[in-house]
């Protein structure tokens, strides 16, 4: 890669697969369960987290040498919360429609363990540019899983994708519903998100056996 050194590029590509925050580090599960019932919400959440994590990582990295270690967790929390609130306020003033879609995610972003996890594990020990890349990589890794889970939950649970009826109409019995297919309402509930993530973890580890932990 011309733009990024090999090491820098790895900061982005690693968390996408072999060090994925959800499937390998098992962070950020709470929000992955809560909002993946439809694809659109998953995409919005993915974009928001990319923004907050990349920016937050840079801020933390810039002040990493002056943060007193005793209160570093609180400092991280304050920065994450402040960033999210500022973004929310700006959206409310200039893109009101979008801010309404995002409102439910604001609280979820602040408490997302990936944010705190990356601040603590990476930004406190690395420079701003590296932290920025790490933030992009980890939030994108999180986003990919969210979108995969959202895709299957919305498709199998509601028979739609992004609100478009791709399988036909369940009530009018058109499309695949004409052959007796039914939506699986269970897919819309949180436990199925956990099972879906479990299946992703299984598929990933069976393809790359180096990821399997041995006790």
């Amino acid at each position, binding site marked *: 890669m011309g733009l990024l050194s090999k090491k820098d590029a790895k900061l982005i590509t690693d968390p996408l697969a072999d060090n994925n925050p959800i499937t390998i580090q098992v962070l950020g599960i709470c929000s992955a369960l*809560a909002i993946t*019932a439809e694809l659109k*919400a998953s995409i919005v959440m993915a974009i928001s987290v990319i923004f907050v994590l990349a920016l937050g990582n840079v801020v933390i990295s810039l002040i990493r040498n002056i943060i*007193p270690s*005793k209160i570093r967790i609180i400092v991280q929390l304050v920065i994450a919360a402040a960033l999210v*609130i500022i973004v929310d*306020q700006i959206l409310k003033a200039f893109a009101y429609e979008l801010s309404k879609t995002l409102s*439910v995610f604001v609280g979820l972003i602040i408490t997302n363990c990936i944010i705190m996890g990356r601040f603590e594990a990476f930004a406190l020990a690395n420079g701003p540019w590296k932290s920025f890349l790490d933030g992009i990589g980890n939030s994108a890794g999180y986003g990919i899983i969210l979108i995969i889970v959202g895709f299957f939950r919305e498709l199998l649970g509601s028979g739609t994708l992004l609100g478009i009826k791709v399988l036909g109409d369940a009530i009018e019995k058109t499309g695949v519903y004409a052959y007796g297919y039914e939506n699986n*309402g269970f897919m*819309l509930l949180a436990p199925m998100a956990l099972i879906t993530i479990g299946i992703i973890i299984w598929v990933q580890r069976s393809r790359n056996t180096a990821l399997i932990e041995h006790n």
Partner: protein
Amino acid sequence: MAKNTDSNLYTVLFASGMVLIVGTLLAFVASSLKEKITENKRIEKQQNILYAMGVNENDETSVEFVSKSVVAAEFSKYITKQLVITGTEAVEDPNAYLIDIKKEAADAKNPNYQRRLPLFIGEKDGVTLYIVPVRGKGLWDAIWGYIALDDQLVVQGVYFDHQGETPGLGSNIKERFFMDDFKGEQILDGDTFKGITAAKGNADPKNMNKTDFQVDAIAGATITGDGLSAMLKKDLKMYVPYLKTLKQ
């Protein structure tokens, strides 16, 4: 110079400094954007009221309000009268839509307070519509809406919105498939007020029966649906004495 970032004094100073900086920043952002945000909320209210009475730019499945640029003109065109009902009295007030329902409901807990109930009267295609604002609790946070009734107290349109219901589940109360079900529903059984319930297993998913006081609930959104039913019962009921006078 190496700083001792572990000393108590430094920690306290850092924390105070951080709070000061972040606090100032947030206060500055909030106050400089306040005017724009209030304006956006006012426009949204007008759009919501118009939506409930059927003035919108919906296509087959979408929820589209009239655009921001024309909303003020459309609002004064379609909304012919705004009333504030206090007790048995109804007074005209061109800014009734700005009444804060949440504040009124909180103030009404004081037994000496006379709650002000805003009612919007509009006219579309020769039909006079009475639009009632409602507000209640969903699963996580507030839910609210506007119900447009004709003079026979039959629902002609609704708009629901929410603060933070679960995306894909409770948040679907603002989707067409749910809101459209309310059209044509009655709220009075003869002379008794029944409201409308979002009911599970009402064996009427296409909502053909318009006199059962029920619409089909959303799967996975039981608490939101219950909150919505309770909101309709509680808030519509306050208007019933006034609305009944229209029916005669």
